[in-house]
């Protein structure tokens, strides 16, 4: 009895020693030198591994930051300027400073304004249904409503609104990593500057059809009428292919374009209610009713 206990104890000890030796030899033999700075920088990064920077994860981004001399074109959208400042301090390199951005959904084609003309049967994925055909409505530019962007979001910052069938960005949670922008086969989601109090003005439509056709497919479609263009004091609006686009670089959030849009396709978010003016009262009401989609 004692002998067998002794034997097994010796055997196990020997096994342990041999294994430890092998591990030691292997770790020495295959040791790869790594710049300790990489780990240091990695600790500064948000560890979200969202790939918003264009690299597969925070580790590989850290490697790139450490190993490149000029890092002014690299940016961590999740960490923003604060994190980049820390990285700059740690590495002693110049970093870019960017205004914080947030994702916006440029489509207001909910079920009641954009009627469904066909029924799609197949996997519920925007990428697949976009490959097969142009969507359940007559608008081939708008949201497909299968939620690929929501699936792509790693920060729970998006959800599908059940009544409108459109995705909604929760601005506070959005880190502007850009995964939803890549996931959307229609390029509906755009990164726009996150102004103070999250004030935004943008065109909520991508339909390049001529006015009549666009309007028939969706009642809140941009018809390219250029009324907004005329009122814009800063020339921030461009119209191309029957579609208006507000360039955030020039827009001063003056809100002049919003009430003139005949189809209410320009979206304003988080602005205080307008001063009552009889002519505008109706319009504001309408805009308010669309608003909830974009700031939940």
């Amino acid at each position, binding site marked *: 009895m004692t002998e067998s206990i002794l034997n097994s104890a010796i055997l196990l000890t020997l096994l342990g020693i041999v294994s430890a030796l092998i591990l030691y030899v292997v770790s020495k033999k295959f040791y790869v030198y790594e710049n300790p700075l990489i780990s240091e920088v990695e600790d500064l990064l948000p560890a979200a591994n969202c790939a918003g920077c264009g690299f597969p994860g925070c580790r590989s981004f850290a490697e790139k930051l450490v190993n490149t001399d000029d890092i002014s074109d690299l940016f961590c959208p999740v960490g923003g300027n604060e994190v980049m400042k820390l990285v700059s301090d740690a590495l002693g390199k110049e970093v870019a400073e960017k205004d914080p951005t947030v994702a916006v959904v440029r489509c207001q084609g909910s079920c009641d304004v954009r009627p469904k*003309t066909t029924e799609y049967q197949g996997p519920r994925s925007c990428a*697949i249904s976009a490959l097969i055909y142009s*969507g359940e409505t007559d608008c*081939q530019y708008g949201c497909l409503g299968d939620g690929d962007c929501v699936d792509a979001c790693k920060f729970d910052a998006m959800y599908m609104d059940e009544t409108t069938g459109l995705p909604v960005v929760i601005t506070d949670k959005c880190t502007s990593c850009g995964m939803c922008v890549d996931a959307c086969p229609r390029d509906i989601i755009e990164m726009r500057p996150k102004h103070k109090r999250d004030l935004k003005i943008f065109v909520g439509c991508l339909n390049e059809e001529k006015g009549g056709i666009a309007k028939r497919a969706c009642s809140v479609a941009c018809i390219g009428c250029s009324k907004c263009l005329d009122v814009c004091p800063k020339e921030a609006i461009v119209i191309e292919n029957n579609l208006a686009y507000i360039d955030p670089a020039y827009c001063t959030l003056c809100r002049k374009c919003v009430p003139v849009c005949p189809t209410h396709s320009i979206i304003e978010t988080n602005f205080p209610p307008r001063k009552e003016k009889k002519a505008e009262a109706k319009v504001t009401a309408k805009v308010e009713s669309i608003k909830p989609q974009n700031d939940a």
Partner: protein
Amino acid sequence: MLKTFPKGGIHPSENKITSAKPIKRLPLPKVVYVPISQHIGIPAEIVVDRKDKVEIGQVIARSGGYVSSNIHSPVAGTVTKLDKIVDTRGYKKQCIVIRSDVKNESNFQENEYPLKEEISLQPEEILKRISDYGIVGLGGATFPSHVKLQVKKDKILDCLIVNGVECEPFLTADHRLMLEKGREILVGIRILMYALQIDRAIIGIENNKKDAIDLFRNLTSGASGIQIAALQVKYPQGGEKQLIRALLKREVPKNGLPMDVGVVVHNVGTVFAIYQAIQHNRPLMERVVTVTGKKLNDPSNFWVKIGTPVKDLLDAVGGVPEDTRKIVSGGPMMGKALKNTDVPVTKGTSGILVISEDEASRGEPKNCIRCGECVDVCPMGLEPHLLMNLSEKGMYEKALEEDILTCIECGSCSYVCPSHRPLLDYIRFGKSIGKQLESNK
């Protein structure tokens, strides 16, 4: 034993309800919408403008490159606008809108010409004309024919295969064409044999078209060089690779072309179009379309001008029944479900299939029970269940290793899956991503 390909394949109910209906001529459409991208490859470039008067057969869009094709006006009339029209996928595509001139007699000329047998052109002239006259593969893939006929220097062709298989259920366009234009097709085959300088041709016809097989056997009796092969009825035998395997026991190598095994394959419709082009100077402006469906009043085969809206075709068969829920351009296995009936007939439209409510819906997908049915039926020796899984999970690199790109999208896997899984949907998606990855390399 009838010939066929050994691995995979299915046999859905044939439903060839229009096989005894002679090809009728559709009344002249008031307006035709001619898309500029009716073929695989680069879209053609528009060479007419608004308000231009065009003659029948006039080039209205010129080939945009090597893999591209001319497009000719199917009617005499006036270009009313250059607009956009939905394609089979529902996306708006550039097209030329032509209002046909009801007073112009050339619009009412039928393509009934006396058979002309002697070939007066030289091989190079033949190839040039096939290219100029906008001939593309009419079997459905719409690959420009002159590209297929351009033999690379290091390849030796020894056999022309004429595809009269028409393995898609419901469709009978090729079948009717063979019955009604058999002699012309044989002349077309001789033209191609002469142009390619080969002395062997095989017409492959599935055994459910016995009348066509008999007709060709009678017509070719005594003549050497052209064989008629009866094939077992099996889908997707009309696929180029499957047909070559069935007839010649040669396997087109992976990523290869039929040319690599010394073969060129052309559809009977294409051969007839080539005959028309060479012997009667008629560019490709019309084709045979089967308009069919179990509940249609009068399903028929039609000669249809390219650019005719599908709704004109449906009106010609007495309208669609009340309970129609799906309209498919092409056959039930590979056709595309249309979003609306404004879609024009293009060079690749072989049929319009109307499906009623009871058969339109897909089954609810369930878990894969790994029965291996999809693996058994895949004619390309792939594992559809695995490919679907890989593309669902985003493992596209792995899917490429599993040869996802060799899938011919025949749909046999989705057809047999007892769990109604959308195998082909995912595989198609995986293929599109795989192609991007491949081209980025």
